[in-house]
């Protein structure tokens, strides 16, 4: 029954993560929706781990290796590109010259 318990544990994680996703995300203001989309987009680049895990297993044929290198490259593009683009977008929001007290928190006060 070890297999079954792994499945149920993972399903529990899945469901809880779904609820966390709903709760955390539903508070985001309209303004930040594009960066948020880009940020979550970067996070699903975590599939990179899948490629890294499988490429380490023995028994991969030459063709498998080709597929996996492409998968790892794709995952890396997703992660690296995603976070960089999001960062670029958000930097623009940050460097506001005083736009109301609540917006200035990110800047160090002189």
């Amino acid at each position, binding site marked *: 029954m070890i297999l079954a318990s792994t499945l149920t544990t993972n399903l529990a994680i899945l469901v809880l993560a779904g609820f966390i996703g709903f709760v955390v995300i539903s508070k985001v203001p309209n303004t930040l929706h*594009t960066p948020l989309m880009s940020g979550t987009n*970067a996070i699903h680049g*975590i599939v990179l781990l899948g*490629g890294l895990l499988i490429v380490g297993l023995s028994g991969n044929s030459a063709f498998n290796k080709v597929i996996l290198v492409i998968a790892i490259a794709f995952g890396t593009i997703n992660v690296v590109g995603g976070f960089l683009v999001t960062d670029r977008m958000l930097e623009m929001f940050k460097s506001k010259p005083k736009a109301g007290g*609540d917006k200035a928190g990110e800047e160090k006060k002189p």
Partner: protein
Amino acid sequence: MSAPPLATSFLQSSSFLDVLYIIAFGLFIQGLRGLSGPTTAVRGNRIAAVGMAIAVIATLLNRNEGNWGLIVLGIALGTAVGVPAARQVKMTAMPQMVALFNGVGGGAVFLISWSEFRLTHGYQGTATYIAIFSLFAAIVGSVSFWGSNIAFGKLQEIIPGRPISLGSAQQIVNLLLLILALAAGVDIAAGAHSEGIFIGMLICAALLGNAVVFPIGGADMPVVISMLNAFTGLSAAATGIALNNPALIVAGMIVGASGTILTNLMATAMNRSIPAIVAGGFGGGGAVEGASGAGEHAGTVRSTSAADAAIQLAYANRVMIVPGYGMAVAQAQHAVRELTKELEKRGVEVGFAIHPVAGRMPGHMNVLLAEADVPYDQLEEMDEANQEFGRTDVSLVIGANDVTNPAAKNTPSSPIYGMPILEVSNSHSVIVIKRSMNPGFAGIENELYYEPETTMLFGDAKAAVSEITAELAHI
């Protein structure tokens, strides 16, 4: 093999790696929380990136890791492509960049499932549920990969943005492809080991991805990208269950949940239902509507010059600027900022009315205007702005179309009827900067242009705005 040194074996112990994974997804959640506020967003994104780095390191530490050459090669290739792409992309091209990054994520998912299938010779010796989740990931990942690429092509204007469909046969074809892909999946899960069936399944899913996105018009593209983003997240979570990796499950599922919320939100803002978009209903209905509506306009269009527009603006007390995708395409945000400064010097009060789906993504206009250093407090969201139009002397519409179309309020037969709009016609006068009289992405005529208080300034948004600014100097 001799026993590894104690430190190494500790680093490779599965409990230690699990702890790293838990830290990683804790950071993802914390990072996403940060992304929900303008002051914490930059930090939030970086926290999530640190989480990702920890998750990758944890994976590389695991005892079974090998084939280091391939890993280095893959990561180097990905970095060589991803970093310059992310660094050099223009802010206006952001939507298609997100589509592309989303696509490669989906691509990685289905390739991983495929190699899993090959490695186990058709899921032999694995639990059925692992096969099911892996197959689900393969189908959804493949749909997401191809769908995102088509979305990219449409936004990049490699593929025509207008809907391309098989007409009434489209939905039947889509359904058939879905059934075929599912049937192949069920067959494999039930014990078929043939790789041919697996590849057939991937092809059906690929065709489905194409078939779903091709008929969708440019106006609906943000909703589609958001939906595909959620899809990729879900497929990543499924991969996580198949590989028994908690970091993948949590991260994938959070993206699946958030993507669903975003998708709903965008669809609501445009008064579109997600099933209608996916079924390709908009393109067909919109085209028919546009054709029948085109002849009905009795009114005439009045065009104006930059000089006249400048005079109108200079003597206004309050000006509301309504930016849209035209401003983004023309890269006019800096020119707009200059115009704003010039007007403010003359004591004109200037505001920006931001429709939630102006541009091609929610928040697209905010990003561009932030780039041009327009202060936050000048940006007004739709409800706020609609209360202001009554006391606005001049509304300056820069490359926005459908989000200002009164048909959404007045014409029940219009395909955009019911979509909340910016009610610019309530202001005393309206100046519309637009390249030509061509209809917008939705393919619908805009009645606003025929109204008596509206004048049109034809031209590229950036050139027109700069001209107005130049004319202002002479007044």
